[in-house]
């Protein structure tokens, strides 16, 4: 006891980098990002998880995905998280299974494919608004309602003000908002906590993190995005 008390009064001897990092007064970027207040949902890809603060998609936030074409595996990036969001609340037992809302998807969501991935179809809502304004309104309502785990929204374009509203709605409702927009919005400012750019590479889709709150932006090596956990060879 006595020895310890004396030691704290002694001037600290700096011996190595590990010692400095062990000091509680040193604020580390990685640790700060590793302990987010909200739970995260795994993306299902370890290489992407490792790049995201907390190791997965942040909940209660807005994620923006920029891409020009559909079919790059962009929905696939979020399906494991959607499944997990429905499962997790179920295991706690206290709450109802949350809803997943898809607003203005470019094509019909194919029910067998979603069921194959483990999505509870009874809790999936598809909304087909007549205009972009209505789509944004519907997204805001769904995000803020508190009954949705995730809201996926496909838009041609929108303004910064609306994105801010969506972000606030997502934060207040505790839902994950995912916005799919064309690539031309890449250089506009966005309040989204995470911005991804998906482009077509030589053989597979390429994913760039344009903005990561609490992490480092940069390209992500996805390997190939599997559709159902298997890799395909050429016939």
């Amino acid at each position, binding site marked *: 006891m006595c020895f310890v008390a004396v030691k704290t009064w002694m001037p600290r001897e700096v011996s190595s980098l590990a010692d400095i990092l062990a000091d509680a007064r040193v604020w580390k970027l990685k640790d700060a990002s590793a302990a987010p207040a909200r739970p995260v949902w795994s993306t299902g890809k370890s290489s992407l998880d490792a790049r995201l603060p907390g190791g997965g998609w942040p909940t209660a936030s807005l994620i923006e995905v920029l891409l020009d074409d559909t079919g790059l595996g962009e929905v696939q990036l979020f399906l494991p998280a959607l499944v997990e969001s429905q*499962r997790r609340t179920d295991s706690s037992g206290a709450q*109802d299974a949350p809803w997943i809302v898809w607003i203005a998807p470019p094509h*019909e969501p*194919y029910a067998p*494919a979603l069921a194959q991935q483990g999505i509870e179809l009874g809790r999936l*809502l598809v909304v087909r608004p007549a205009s972009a304004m209505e789509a944004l309104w519907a997204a805001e*309502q769904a995000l803020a*309602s*508190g009954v949705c785990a995730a809201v996926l929204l496909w838009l041609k374009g929108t303004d910064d003000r609306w994105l801010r509203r969506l972000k606030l709605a997502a934060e207040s409702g505790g839902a994950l908002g995912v916005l799919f927009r064309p690539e031309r919005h890449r250089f506009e400012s966005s309040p989204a906590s995470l911005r991804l750019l998906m482009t077509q590479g030589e053989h597979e889709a390429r994913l760039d993190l344009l903005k990561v709150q609490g992490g480092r932006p940069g390209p992500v090596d996805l390997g190939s995005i599997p559709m159902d956990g298997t890799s395909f060879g050429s016939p």
Partner: protein
Amino acid sequence: MTADLFAAEQMPPAAVPAPAATPAPQTARHARSKQLWYAVVFPEMAHQEQSTVLLRGLCMHAQQFTSFVSIEPPNALLLEIKGSLKLLGPLERLHADLDARWQRLGLPAHSAAAPSTLAALWLARGGVGPGGEPGGTAPRAGQSLQLEDLGTLPGRLAGLPIACTAWDISRLQTLRAMGVTRMGELLRLPRAGLARRLGAAAVQDLDIALARQFAPRRAFVPRERFYARCDFETEIENVAYLEKALEPLIARCAQFLRERQAGVQALRLKLRHRAGPATRVHLGLASITSERRRLMDVLSQKLGRLGLEAPVRGMELVSGSLQPLIAASLDVFAGMTGAGAGRDSAPQLVERLRARLGENAVYGVASIAEHRPEAAWRRVQELRLASALRVDKKTAHQMMNDPRMPRPVWLLAAPLPLDSGLILEQGPERIESGWWDGKGVARDYYVARQSPDAPQSHGAKLWVFQERRSKRWYLHGKFA
């Protein structure tokens, strides 16, 4: 005359089982009945489409005289008036008052009172005359048949033609073939034989008419609705003010529903203008509710989208039919804690979206066990909004999960013909089905990518198939 009624004549061959040969219930012949029924028949209503609706309206009139009114399709009402005699009697006066009511409404009617339901009905129908003789607009004072004594009942029925029983044609023809045209002749026939020839139901009807058997009737219960009307002192042009004015009406409606432990699933709002037809707003709710907040929410969504063409002078709020509210357990602390405050339930969200975007714009999807890809799913408009639904892990995991049969997230509405180069990555998966309903398919499905030299190559992962007969390639889905 009454002695030989239904005289128990034994059938000579005892082996023949007499169908429904129930012994005639014994009642005191000359007792005064405990019930007194007033029947009114509206001959002109028999062939009208909306007769039930009209009769329901007439029930409201009849309920001013008695609490028990029953609708007798197609064109008659039955009123129990014994209980009303003390207050509104004597019988002659009550009868006359009732008849005067139909006369005032301009409805030709024939009425009669009798101690049993069917006797009153038959007597009233008998007033029509055998061949549907065009009777007067109202029964003449002498024609009103009244009787209260059970003992005289068979005697009064005896003169009626058998047609007033309103039995079906074949039964009446059987009777005519037997030479029976009047009720008296019918009542004189042996009971067992009658049951055999006409069926047990006919005998039972006779028992009911003679007040030997009790026949309960279903009382008419008026459908309750909430109705509130509000006239403005000044005309309102702004929807926001309209919403404000609507708030007390909604509050009253919610109060009304709460008092009755009921909820509504539809509301109608009528906005009246100085000229021109009134604007009608109809709103449906995803589930039965009596909550003021939800009703107001949906109404204000509807109003927000409503373009007011003219200033509003007044409005009327009418509820749909009341439905019993099934109480769901609510979270006690939901309204108190900061996080739970202001949160919606799933039905609330769905109906708010539907109120603004339209009923068909919000739907669910369901998977169908079917091999043809385009038939393996459907839209679901009736969402399972019950809060009890939990994710069932077992069913979710039992889903087809064969890596050799990948399915794309997007399915195109119709297969798109392809001509550019493809790089096939996985397949084929042969789907051949549906020959039985004329929409047969014979296809080989592949997972493919567009080759880099294709015109609009974004390298998307595609679900393509080759039609096996025509050997042509089509795009059917995209792996997003």
